[in-house]
């Protein structure tokens, strides 16, 4: 005989409901005023949907103040719970907080990565705003500080260690020693090569997600992920050089940054890159 009760999670708390309970019935029981329901990452499925064992249901009212724990739960309700738990336990380093780093940081913070270590020596300038995730009011501020502030506004549950410093071969272990993954988001080709070499040498267990080739407005099709080894990935078209006057556009830079953050996310959740 089938068990008359099944275990489910409502807003991450374990609960028991009668077998055959529908979404509408659960909603009426747990949160009749709910403005929205998300069931196993799907928003507002049909009310007659029958719940199954170990379903994850999020119900919330739009009004009122949320605690940090509630915010985390509700903001991440569209991600599979198992992936979110792995992301929460992760620490990712980001070298450079420009067009790449500001996007990588935002993507990983929004995905709920537990801790980000962000290092950048520069300040926000007007010419950054065509592609970097800053605001007019932040012109003149150190990027590390400005980015940390922006991330706290959308994802207060992410621990951010923002350092106003240039990452070099001499300090990369101190800066990124606690990270399992480092995204190389620097600007100059020489700096990229030097940091990748230093990290591979000094932190051989760290996975590096580097970038090369994102300038200009040519097609995005050649942008790809090169797997150098299981500890080094390079995202980009590998040839379009900003030093050649091609310019930098938010869309093309952002594609590379999003691919870098996607590789980092996949490494954390354990899916095939």
């Amino acid at each position, binding site marked *: 005989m089938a068990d008359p009760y099944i275990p489910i999670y409502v807003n991450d708390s374990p609960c028991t409901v009668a077998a055959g309970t529908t979404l509408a019935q659960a909603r009426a029981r747990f949160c009749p005023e709910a403005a929205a329901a998300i069931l196993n990452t799907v928003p507002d499925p049909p009310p007659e949907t029958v719940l199954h064992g170990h379903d994850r249901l999020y119900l919330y009212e739009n009004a009122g103040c949320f605690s940090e724990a509630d915010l985390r739960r509700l903001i991440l309700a569209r991600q599979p719970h198992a992936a979110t738990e792995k992301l929460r336990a992760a620490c990712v380093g980001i070298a*450079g907080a*420009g*067009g*790449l*780093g500001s996007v990588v940081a935002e993507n990983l913070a929004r995905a709920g990565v537990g801790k980000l270590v962000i290092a950048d020596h520069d300040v926000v300038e007007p010419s950054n705003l065509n592609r970097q995730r800053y605001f007019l009011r932040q012109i003149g501020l150190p990027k590390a500080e400005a980015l940390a502030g922006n991330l706290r506004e959308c994802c207060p549950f992410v621990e951010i260690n923002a350092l106003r410093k240039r990452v070099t071969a001499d300090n990369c272990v101190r800066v990124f020693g606690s990270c399992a993954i480092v995204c190389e*988001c*620097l*600007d*100059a*080709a*020489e700096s*990229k*090569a030097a940091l*990748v*070499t230093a990290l*591979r*040498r000094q932190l051989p267990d760290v996975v590096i997600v*580097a*970038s*090369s*080739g*994102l*300038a200009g407005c040519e097609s995005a099709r050649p942008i790809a992920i*090169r797997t*150098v*080894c299981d500890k*080094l990935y*390079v995202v*980009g078209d*590998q*040839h*379009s*050089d*900003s*030093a050649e006057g091609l310019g*930098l556009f938010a869309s093309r*830079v952002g594609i590379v940054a999003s691919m870098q953050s996607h590789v980092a996310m996949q490494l954390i959740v354990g899916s095939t890159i």
Partner: protein
Amino acid sequence: MKLIINGEERTFGQPPATLASLLDQLCVPVARTAVELNGSVVEKHRFEATALREADRIEIVSFVGGG
């Protein structure tokens, strides 16, 4: 001499004795390149002293600017 460079087998009639001479032959911009030999990174100051052997696997990662 056969070497595997970026995953592809290449045959050299004039075998490069060192990593430095290989990179020179291939016109690799050394200052903006990271190099791995058989899975281990090689620092720039070691290029000259690093001898190459038959069937060595070399990954050459040349970076361009932008970030």
